[in-house]
């Protein structure tokens, strides 16, 4: 997958037609084959832009950034990124008319070791769902499948699962990088983030990590688009996707196959309800 | 270091509601004999902790020449100060660490004319120095206090200001930002009154100013316009702090630690710092 030329062309065109102020894309780091998100304001720098299967980071995160606020933005989105963009639009966090979205028909991105990322192998929406312009050949929607890790963990005993998660919470260093890198976390005052909140447990203990990660994942339930920004940001390499994928699974099975941000105008699972929702777990 | 961060317990002896959102807490150490050992200079600050809510930095607003107690004036502004206002009353206990920081250059201002320029809660650090200077009145020459607030209700230490006004050795000028009925004197922001009403003598005068950042900025501009030299303008900085020990890194401005090298700076020193305060 290499759309570098197309993206450069589009960006140049947008700048010459004066449609955008900032273009958010990827560029090479300059020292290895990884990529850095680039916020390009100068048309001369367009030649830095690239797009390959190393373009991992979800760029919709930058829409909460002060560099893009109240500006006309050109944005590159993959399938999963476009789902988060979709949700940000329904939640009125960005204005559609300020955005020029370049949708990618994504074939999956690779991790540092060069393997295809797990979320790409299980991807439901490889093609961007919100776009002004599409790059690549769309593949269409894929079937939803159970995350392999979830499948394995769910078949384990409660005690084993507990031991596994205790290890996760034990190894959390409470840097809150997961929350900061999440495109769906845009609250100015976050309830797990430091100091701004009275609910906050700042210490790095197992208990407070449990509190923070659980609250965070429940606030993202029905909104997480599985872009794995959080996992990329986690310095302890914690498998944070387990919490989100489990919630996604519960929601998919119980709430009319809801998947966050797949349809335009569709809200998160907790912002709507149905008469068919399960009731048998309630006395 | 953890021991250095453990506060000593103080009892609130008296609580004075200065304005709707400013209270002065008069504190005494719970432990016998600590009060006598606790020594501070005007301009220094303490870490005031309401256990369970957190710790905040406040300057000591009374002078060490008034023995047996010390005051902290607290304005309701953030989470902890809101809790302080909500929860603390006379007889309650709080934690105190300190005193930290440097103090006003007492030796340098000896034998000079003094001009205090305060705004709002910014009078609190000045009050410590004013009390100190009143108690050593003979060391100083002319003595002018210019104090402004948004409204007459926002003027702190009203009783004390009355005392100052009655004192023939002091000149007190008050001002409020917007006109009000039954307000006898000046109306206008502090820098304006400074230029138009106070008209200070520049020779042999030291100016000590404190207030909201924006007021300090314009006051310093006016002072410069009046002809004051940078070393003669002394101010105290407000900066977020957590430890007061020069470790936590919050109060860094360039390579300066406000909690150790400050909070009292002359304008000359401030000009050498990066513009991050």
């Amino acid at each position, binding site marked *: 997958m290499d759309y570098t030329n197309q993206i450069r062309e589009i960006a140049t065109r947008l700048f010459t037609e004066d449609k955008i102020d900032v273009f958010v894309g990827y560029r090479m780091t300059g020292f290895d084959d990884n990529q850095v998100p680039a916020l390009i304001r100068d048309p001369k720098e367009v030649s830095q832009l690239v797009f390959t299967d190393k373009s991992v980071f979800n760029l919709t995160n930058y829409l909460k950034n002060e560099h893009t606020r109240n500006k006309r933005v050109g944005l590159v989105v993959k399938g999963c990124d476009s789902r988060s963009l979709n949700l940000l639009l329904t939640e009125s966090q960005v204005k559609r008319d300020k955005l020029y979205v370049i949708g990618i028909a994504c074939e999956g991105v690779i991790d540092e070791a060069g393997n295809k990322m797990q979320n790409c192998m299980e991807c439901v929406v490889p093609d961007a769902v919100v776009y002004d312009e599409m790059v690549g050949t769309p593949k269409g929607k894929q079937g939803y499948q159970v995350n392999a890790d979830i499948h394995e963990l769910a078949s384990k005993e409660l005690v084993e699962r507990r031991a596994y998660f205790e290890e996760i919470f034990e190894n959390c260093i409470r840097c809150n990088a997961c929350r900061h890198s999440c495109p769906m976390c845009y609250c100015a005052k976050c309830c797990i983030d430091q100091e701004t909140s009275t609910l906050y447990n700042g210490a790095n203990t197992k208990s407070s990590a449990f509190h923070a990660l659980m609250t965070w994942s429940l606030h993202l339930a029905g909104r997480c688009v599985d872009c794995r920004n959080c996992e990329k940001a986690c310095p302890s390499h914690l498998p944070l996707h387990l919490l989100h994928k489990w919630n996604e699974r519960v929601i998919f099975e119980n709430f009319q196959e809801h998947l966050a941000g797949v349809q335009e105008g569709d809200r998160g699972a907790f912002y709507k*309800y149905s008469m068919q929702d399960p009731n048998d777990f309630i006395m | 270091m953890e021991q250095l961060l453990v506060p000593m317990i103080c009892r609130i002896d008296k609580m004075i509601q200065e304005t709707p959102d400013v209270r002065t807490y008069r504190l005494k150490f719970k432990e016998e004999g600590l009060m006598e050992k606790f020594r501070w200079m005007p301009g220094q600050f303490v870490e005031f902790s309401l256990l369970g809510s957190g710790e905040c930095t406040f300057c000591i607003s009374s002078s060490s020449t008034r023995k047996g107690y010390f005051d902290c004036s607290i304005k309701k502004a953030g989470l902890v100060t809101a809790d302080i206002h909500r929860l603390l009353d006379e007889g309650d206990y709080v934690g105190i660490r300190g005193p930290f920081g440097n103090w006003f250059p007492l030796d340098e201002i000896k034998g000079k004319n003094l001009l205090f320029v305060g705004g709002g809660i910014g009078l609190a650090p000045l009050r410590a120095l004013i009390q100190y200077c009143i108690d050593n009145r003979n060391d100083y020459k002319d003595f002018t206090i210019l104090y402004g607030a948004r409204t007459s209700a926002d003027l702190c230490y009203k009783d004390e200001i009355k005392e100052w006004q009655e004192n023939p050795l002091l000149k007190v000028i008050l001002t409020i930002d917007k006109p009000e009925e039954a307000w006898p004197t000046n109306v206008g922001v502090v820098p304006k009154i400074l230029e138009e009403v106070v008209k200070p003598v520049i020779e042999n005068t030291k100016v000590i100013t404190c207030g909201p950042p924006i007021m300090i900025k314009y006051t310093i501009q006016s002072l410069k316009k009046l002809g004051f030299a940078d070393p003669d303008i002394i101010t105290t900085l407000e900066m977020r702090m957590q430890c007061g020990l020069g470790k936590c890194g919050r109060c860094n401005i360039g390579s300066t630690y406000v909690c150790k090298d400050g909070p009292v700076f002359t304008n000359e020193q401030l000009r050498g710092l990066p513009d991050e305060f």
Partner: protein
Amino acid sequence: MEAVANKQLVSIEKPEIAAPPDWEPVIIGILCNWCSYAGSDLTGTSRIQYPPNIRIIRVPCSSRVDPWFLIKSLQTTADGVLVSGCHPGDCHYISGNYYARRRFLVTKKLLNFVGFHEDRIQFSWVSAAEGPKFAQVVAKVTGDIKKLGPLHLYKKENFEK
């Protein structure tokens, strides 16, 4: 496709430390103002006995219950939590409990997934007229939690037993 999430998770919780003989569980009951709280009132006025282990918190509506409340309860004093609201369709705010129902399911499943027995968190619909039902519900929850023993998982340090 296999319904992984809805499959009953294997949940045998072994008590980590045997409960002391005189141990009584602490259960936080979060009740909606309009139905369940009135229902619990009726239980009292009708002089129906129910276990005293429940500590009641009144909230305006069951949809006021943020999942965070449950997490915080389990982290501090509680050995179990009961949330109760109006029956579906009876919500004072028209649809609050429908929203709440979704959240409850996900919270319960997630807490179960990370290692809490599913009986630690329970939900019920109790209307203002169902005094006896409230007593039954509390009795059942208390019984369930007594069987499970005290909760130690992720307790805050001040609350470690």
